[in-house]
């Protein structure tokens, strides 16, 4: 267990390192220059240009710039945002809570609603199953930003039940403000998870051990819980992990539609103006989150299904 964790943590560090290099490189290679932004797109005399380049180390070769960034990052200094002229950590920190709560709410919705729908569809069958199939097809095909537009038009503008913007102040207000955004964000993923759950459970239902269990007279509920669900969960959890990663990406669109001012929106804007330090920090945060989620899944897996060895992830 300890060796496994150690190995995974080393992998995490290496992944972050590789990601930081790739992100830094790609921002560096993309067209346009940050000094253009720093000078406001206006006429600059060569003296001002040189001063700005020196100040932000833009006049040094890529390797040197990257090494300098890495050195400071290791000491916890992620540099200064080019556009905001303040510390990146502070800027990211201010936007992080809203985005995390949004993702957490959406993830909860995805897991609860997705599992329940998949379960009901697989176990009940018939008309209910057809309804689940149609409903999830619509959900899967509805991108979050479309859902956002519809939800806003109906529940905020028409009915006036929910606010149209902001992530609220205080925990309860935040939940209220983030209700529509998290539904919009969760919707397509709910569809995916419900379908995966349904398929995995149906597969298990058709297995021999289920038939054997039933023939022995074990109550149906126990069969479903112990033989069907447990075996299906491997696939579902893996899919859930992927979903969580997808949620992170989709926050960008949802955050802008609801005016939440979160990390996704911040990242998008920073990319357009080539704000290297911010892009680096936010990207690493996202990559780190991905890797951590995967780590958690790998740890949970063997606990759900003892037949799976630590770190293998094959669903039985």
């Amino acid at each position, binding site marked *: 267990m300890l060796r496994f964790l150690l190995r995974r943590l080393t992998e995490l560090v290496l992944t972050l390192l590789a990601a930081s290099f790739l992100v830094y490189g790609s921002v560096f290679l993309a067209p346009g220059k940050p000094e253009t932004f720093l000078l406001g797109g206006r*006429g600059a005399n060569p003296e001002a240009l040189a001063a700005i380049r020196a100040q932000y180390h833009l006049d040094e070769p890529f390797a040197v710039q990257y090494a300098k960034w890495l050195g400071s990052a290791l000491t916890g200094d992620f540099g200064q945002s080019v556009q905001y002229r303040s510390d990146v950590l502070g800027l990211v920190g201010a936007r992080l809570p809203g985005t995390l709560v949004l993702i957490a709410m959406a993830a909860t919705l995805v897991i609860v609603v997705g599992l329940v729908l998949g379960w009901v569809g697989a176990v009940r069958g018939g008309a209910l199953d057809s309804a689940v199939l149609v409903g999830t097809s619509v959900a899967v095909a509805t991108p979050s930003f479309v859902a956002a537009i519809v939800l806003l038009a109906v529940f905020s503008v028409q009915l006036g039940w929910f606010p149209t913007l902001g992530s609220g102040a205080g925990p309860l207000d935040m939940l209220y403000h983030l209700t529509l955004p998290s539904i919009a964000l969760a919707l397509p993923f709910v569809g995916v998870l419900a379908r995966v759950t349904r398929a995995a459970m149906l597969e298990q239902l058709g297995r021999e051990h289920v038939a054997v269990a039933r023939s022995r007279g074990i109550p149906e509920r126990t069969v479903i819980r112990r033989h069907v669900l447990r075996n299906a969960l491997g696939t579902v959890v893996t899919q859930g992990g992927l979903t969580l990663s997808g949620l992170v990406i989709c926050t960008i669109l949802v955050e802008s539609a609801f005016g939440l001012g979160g990390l996704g929106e911040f990242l998008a*804007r920073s990319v357009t103006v080539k704000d290297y330090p911010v892009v680096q920090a936010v990207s690493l945060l996202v990559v780190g989150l991905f890797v951590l989620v995967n780590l958690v899944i790998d740890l949970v897996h063997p606990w759900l299904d003892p037949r799976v060895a630590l770190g293998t992830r094959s669903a039985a």
Partner: protein
Amino acid sequence: MAKIPRRAAAAGALLLALALVLTACGTPAGSRGAADYRLSAGTPRPKGEISGFSWALYAEPPVLDYLYAFDYPQNTVLANVCESLMRWTPGLTTEPGLARKASNPDPKTWVYDLRAGVKFHGGGELTADDAVYSLRRHLDPKLGSYWNEDFANVASIDKTGPLQVTVRLKRPDALFPQAMANSAGTVASSRSIKAQGRKFGTADGGLDCTGPFELGRWNRGQSLRLDRFDGYWGRRAKAGHVTFTFLPDSSARTNALLTGEVDGTFGVPPESLARLRSSDSGTLSFGEGLTTVNLNVASLKGTLKDVRVRRALLLALDREGFARAAMRGSATPTSAPAPRAAWRGIPRGITDRAYRQLPTVKRDLETARKLIRQAGAEGKKLTVATSPIGPDVSLLALAVQDAGTRIGLNVELKTIAPDAFTALFSDAKAREGLDLFPYTYYLSITDPLGIYTNFRTGQFENYAHFSDPEYDRVEARASATYDPVKRGRITAQLQKLALDKAICLPVAEYPNAVFQSRRITGAPTTVSYLYYPWAADVGARG
């Protein structure tokens, strides 16, 4: 003086939509074009005070240091917090600001006598030292002020009395005193600037200025609050506070206005005009803007070398169609790169004469084809930049392609990523291989010369490296003339020269649009909100 490539627009996909939006242009009501809007001088005066109101911005101001205040969001906020030596008014004229008097003992000297007893938000009192220190920051290349061009002719800035600042110029410069009414002339407490260093004007630091509002809570990524400053030297603000909300998505902004969650905004997106106009949640008004959209000539080396080709393109371009499509009718096709409202300070007769000299906006394909034949340009290639940055850019590029094709040119569109589009305005490399690019531009002073100086030999924004000794001579004469009437006459000559040479292809003027909820009124309708403490005029409607 400031003109600007619309960085806002260039700022990216999220912002784009709004970008176009924010602009404006104004032709006096009743003039050409079938626009479905009417310009008003202002909105009704408030009946009383209000505890506070909220206002939407299409982006968070990255910093509020006046050195870098050169875009809509930061200026909309900063205009209420920090003040300049002179002040731009809602009527787009200039009046005394922190300086009670500006005098001009000789053409190369400007003396500013400051008001006595003006308090900073932090409690200090305004002195000449503050003004000298604030202005000199623009001269420091390490700070990289966005307004450095306005100081290009400045030789020295000195204190000549406890409340007197004297600026000496290398040569007479008619635009300099006008720039003292925008962010170039801002005065902040020198003590606070020194104390805060790099944090000055950021969310971590703050601002110590003299305006009717002071900086309150800055909730990063979401909102920023201004609170009324009780020690203000001028007229007390009618609202106790203003909360600016950052809403990059244009439909998010529109929704917030429709539901009354936000009380108002400047620069309503064109796609939202219809919904807001028919809504009973508030009132939509239009005023003069100083924004034009043009086609900038990127190179005079290729197909556009021959002036007949440039003229032919202008004749073939469907400017009326563009104005209708791009701004849903809220724009006016034009034949001049400088907006008509920029001539405000110049007698009407001179302006009218200048405009009568302009080529017609009407499309004339026959003459255009003839010009192309005469120039021997049939079948020649023309590369035009386009970008998914916003409908005005892509529509305009398509309009050029249509015009070129009709007159026998081979027009190729080159798509440029939104983030690379801004680079066109400042990086010669980015413009390589291009003949034309769409260009939205606004003036920060009320003077058409602000645009025409751009085509002087060697100017930074003279992208095509146009050079004409006669043009330079007339431009130098205009720049050295302080008398607005005389300067107006010379500028009219300059405008004619620019149009004869078709150095830039003018397309349309945009008006400024402002929306206010049922609760509030009093905001100006003109683009003056960028440098005028407009929020102090906003109060209760009923």
